[in-house]
């Protein structure tokens, strides 16, 4: 098991490592002179630009730049933002808990709604319950997050005025989390349904039924326990999608997370911020997938012991 975790961590590390390379290359594939684009504010002279170039090490061969970048990374230095000239890591760390809170709340909603819906549909396969659940799910999949968000905002905040709209407390988490959670619940419902249908067709479920076990035992002990395995495996992916979706939803609801700030950074061409964001995001997603893999291994004895 330790070995397994170590392997997964190593894989995550490779992901992050490749992310560092990608992020270093990013600045170099930008057409034009990155320094001018980044720092060319209205009063910088060519000499000052050159000085910045030297300060950032952009005058050196790319592999030296990369080595230095790695060196700074290891000390937790992600560079400084261009807008406002602040440490990138600080900015990320301030905003990350907000995104994490949103992602987690949405995940809970997505799992609660999506998995029960999918399970119900699979169990009632072929009935109107199944059809209804799947129509709901496919409509959910087709609905753009941001539109759903706007509709919810229009309904609950502006028209009914049930929920607050400005402010960072948990009440204002409800709408964005609902938006993101419902959109992902739809995806999860479809995945759960097909996973569970596969499981229901398995020989071992037939065996369990042949043993005369009660419906509950067959469903929960045999089918769901086994069905959870592939579903949990999908959760890692789901989390990544959630984080991605958060970028959009944060912008709709003015949620002060990394996603909203990433968009601002793209507009401002604040490359150190963009670099930091990509690296950070890749790390978070990679870590999440390690956690999911480990959870997966705990659920599936076939992995646990090999």
């Amino acid at each position: 098991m330790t070995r397994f975790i170590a392997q997964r961590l190593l894989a995550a590390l490779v992901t992050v490592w490749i992310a560092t390379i990608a992020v270093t290359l990013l600045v170099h594939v930008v057409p034009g002179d990155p320094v001018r684009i980044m720092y060319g504010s209205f009063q910088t002279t060519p000499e000052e630009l050159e000085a910045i170039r030297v300060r950032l090490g952009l005058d050196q061969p790319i592999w030296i730049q990369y080595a230095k970048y790695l060196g700074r990374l290891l000390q937790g230095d992600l560079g400084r933002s261009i807008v406002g000239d602040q440490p990138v890591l600080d900015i990320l760390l301030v905003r990350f808990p907000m995104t994490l809170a949103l992602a987690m709340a949405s995940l809970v909603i997505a799992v609660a709604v999506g998995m029960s819906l999918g399970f119900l549909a699979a169990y009632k396969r072929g009935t109107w319950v199944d059809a209804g659940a799947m129509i709901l799910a496919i409509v959910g999949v087709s609905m753009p997050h941001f539109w759903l968000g706007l509709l919810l905002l229009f309904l609950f905040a502006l028209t009914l005025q049930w929920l607050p709209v400005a402010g960072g407390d948990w009440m204002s988490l409800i709408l964005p989390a609902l938006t993101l959670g419902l959109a992902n619940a739809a995806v999860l419902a479809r995945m759960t349904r097909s996973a569970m249908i596969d499981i229901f067709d398995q020989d071992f479920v037939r065996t369990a039924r042949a043993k005369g076990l009660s419906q509950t035992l067959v469903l929960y002990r045999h089918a769901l326990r086994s069905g959870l395995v592939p579903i949990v495996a999908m959760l890692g992916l789901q989390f990544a999608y959630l984080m991605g979706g958060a970028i959009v939803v944060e912008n709709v609801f003015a949620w002060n997370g990394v996603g909203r700030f990433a968009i601002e950074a793209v507009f401002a061409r604040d490359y150190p911020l963009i670099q930091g964001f990509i690296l950070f995001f890749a790390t978070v997603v990679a870590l999440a997938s390690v956690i999911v893999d480990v959870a997966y291994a705990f659920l599936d004895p076939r992995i646990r012991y090999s």
Partner: protein
Amino acid sequence: MTTETLDPRSADADAPVAASARRKPRSFLAALLRSPSGLIGLVIVGLLVVCALTAPVIAPHDPLRMAAGPRLQPPTWDYWMGTDDFGRDVLSRILYGAQLTLQIGVIAVGISLTCGLLLGLVAGYSSGWTERVLMRLVDVLFSFTEIVIALACLAIFGVGLTNAMIAIGIASIPFYARVTHSVVLVEKGKPYFEAATAAGAGHLRLIFVHLLPNVVPTLIVVGTLGVSTAVLAAAGLSFLGLGAQPPEPEWGFMLSASRDLISRAPWMMIFPGLAIAVTVLGFNLLGDGVREALDPRQRQR
């Protein structure tokens, strides 16, 4: 001994299998039309294509002309979906927007499908180091998630609808590569592939005559579903201001423009949103339908 399960009816040896052949639908299209999702999907997508092609004819107004009507006019007989804050006809804009949406679907999926297919085929066919390195890279890119890759691309190329299409295309290459790779691995493991190798087939024949046709059906399904993802993603980017630029009547961009007017002119938000949702729904249903129609298990039933 194991038993034959695929066509158990024709157990006695050489009796012609007319019976089972008769039970099969004549064609893929017939199978597609028989599944409700396929049918609805096809109708929606068909409508979209028709709208896109005939927009110049059927659109009641010029989508770009300002003050074509009064500003912020709620839906009326003249302006079925109302007008926006410049007095432009929302319906006409949505009809023209279908052109952009189709373009997004074709270009984005075209890029990701072509590159992903190539990558997946090469990796899956070659095995060994090439495969491992390629797939490891693809896995890593995949874990970056599409939106981040798209953001990175936009940070490099700058914002704009064309760039957004390309960015989305690039961003989903890893996904298509993965799907292709896994299908190739499955197909490569099937005896027919070994049979072809044993018959003396060379690399090109193995890849293009044997693997490709067996990989393509899955990719058609994935590609159809992929159009819906691409349309959503592009609308998302446009909504964030990273995609379409004014005055393009892109639906996501129209939605984003409606934000400030959400309570005064809800029709500006409702109709483009519906257009996106229905289109995405259409491609999703079509994809499901194609999947069902291509699945021999479903077809034989």
